[in-house]
């Protein structure tokens, strides 16, 4: 067997090993989130709320800015095309649907992937290096229950909330540029937006955001537990964690968009 073949095989094995262990990790997290609370091992809600503040509330400013600007861009770009057909008024409907179905969930997830995956991996990875995680284990405290579950819950609760916020702010951004720069009448803009939006659009965006939240929390935490070496290892794991979250989010987005398109 050539060296290249040997190397590529070990890469595949490496990949498969990570896939199996990340699914074990997810399994364990779900066990501590859904099963153990009924066996007398309660979820740490206080820690979860602290994390919600950390990943959710503190992400609002950056989320607000990004979604406002994206709203503006969406309306400008669609108006540019629609002008050719004399249908510039429909920029409002197009932007609203595109935002709620796609742009708001995806961009919120991407911003949080950078912000939160990195923070989770760096924090927990450093705890692994300084033996804090082993100390928890030795005190018979499951690191999954103590560290991962609150972060997981915080993400799954906060990402859909942030997505709704991004929907609203994005539409407001679009409204400003649509009425002030393009010259759509305010009442018409609002009417078109409300008319175009279906519950289905918003829901499909929210379902996706829950999937993205699971990806960000799981990848961010998992990468921390496989850190090898000291500071260098933490840095590397943080980088891999952000890249992996981003790619997984976009792949999952593609998959779910296809499912929604075909079945709903």
């Amino acid at each position, binding site marked *: 067997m050539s060296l290249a073949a040997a190397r590529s095989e070990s890469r595949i094995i490496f990949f498969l090993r990570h896939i199996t262990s990340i699914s074990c990790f997810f399994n364990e997290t779900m066990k501590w989130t859904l099963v153990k609370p009924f066996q007398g091992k309660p979820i740490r809600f206080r820690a979860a709320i602290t994390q919600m503040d950390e990943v959710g509330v503190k992400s609002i400013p950056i989320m607000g800015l990004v979604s406002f600007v994206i709203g503006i861009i969406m309306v400008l770009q669609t108006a540019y095309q629609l002008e050719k057909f004399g249908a510039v008024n429909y920029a409002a409907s197009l932007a609203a649907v595109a935002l709620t179905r796609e742009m708001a969930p995806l961009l919120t997830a991407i911003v949080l992937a950078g912000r939160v995956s990195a923070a989770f991996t760096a924090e927990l990875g450093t705890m692994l290096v300084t033996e*804090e995680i082993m100390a928890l284990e030795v005190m*018979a405290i499951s690191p999954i229950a103590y560290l991962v579950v609150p972060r997981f819950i915080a993400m799954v609760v906060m990402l859909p909330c942030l997505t709704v916020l991004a929907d609203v702010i994005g539409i407001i951004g679009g409204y400003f540029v649509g009425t002030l720069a393009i010259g759509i009448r305010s009442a018409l803009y609002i009417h078109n937006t409300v008319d175009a939006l279906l519950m289905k659009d918003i829901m499909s965006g929210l379902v996706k955001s829950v999937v993205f939240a699971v990806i960000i929390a799981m990848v961010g935490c998992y990468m921390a537990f496989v850190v090898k070496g000291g500071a260098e290892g933490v840095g590397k794991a943080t980088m891999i964690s952000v890249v992996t979250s981003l790619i997984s989010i976009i792949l999952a987005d593609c998959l779910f968009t296809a499912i929604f398109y075909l079945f709903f």
Partner: protein
Amino acid sequence: MTEALLEVKNLIKSFEGRVVLDGINLTVERGSVFAIMGGSGCGKTTLLRHLIGVVRPDSGQIMVGGQDITLFDENLMDGYRRRFGMMFQMGALLNSLSVHDNIALPLREHTELDEKIIGVMVKMKLELVGLRDFEHLKPAQLSGGMQKRVALARALALDPEIVFYDEPTSGLDPVVTGVISQLILDVSKRMGITSVVVTHDIGSAFKIADKMVVLFRGKVVAEGTPKDIQQSSDPLVQQFIHGSPDGPIPLRQSSKDYLEDLLDM
């Protein structure tokens, strides 16, 4: 007082083909201070990790109070872990929690005690290590020696039967080293706690240990009271306790011939 609390029988462990522990046998008596000594890379940290149940051996037994912990599942292991405390080399305190919360953590997790009683117990443990005034600080605001003392207080929080110490005196000045050694002795003698100390600090080990073993390349090369060890005729042990650069412990650790290695380039 001669009942064996912890017994290691023929423990073998290898990582990626390299044998790290090669048939370790030792017995720790209840209430005694037992020191595991050896140079860097001799396998003493790996041995400790077996004793606290975070690494499983390839073969061999670790008997604690008559039960083999290498056969424990996660639930039994958690039960065992509540019976011992551990002081980590760098303290391993949770940096996000205050000193108070760090010590209260095992109490909050494993007991149903009232917050008030937990507060009292935390103060008692801190008084024991002489740091009662530092309750509200974060671990990062403490010096290395203080962090280790807080770590000891946390290890004692659940009134364990055994306390494991990983390099309790490494990186500390002579006075703090003395203080920590005295604390280990106090804890052991006054509270009747069995102590297992992994260290390469010969001075403090001779001072506190009732019995000790010296490890070299994954094997026990000497065993006995500090006096036995000091009088040992084994050149390995003599080199280790006197810290001399010449002797059977090699300075060079490469297995390849030097000349061959150079000519290969």
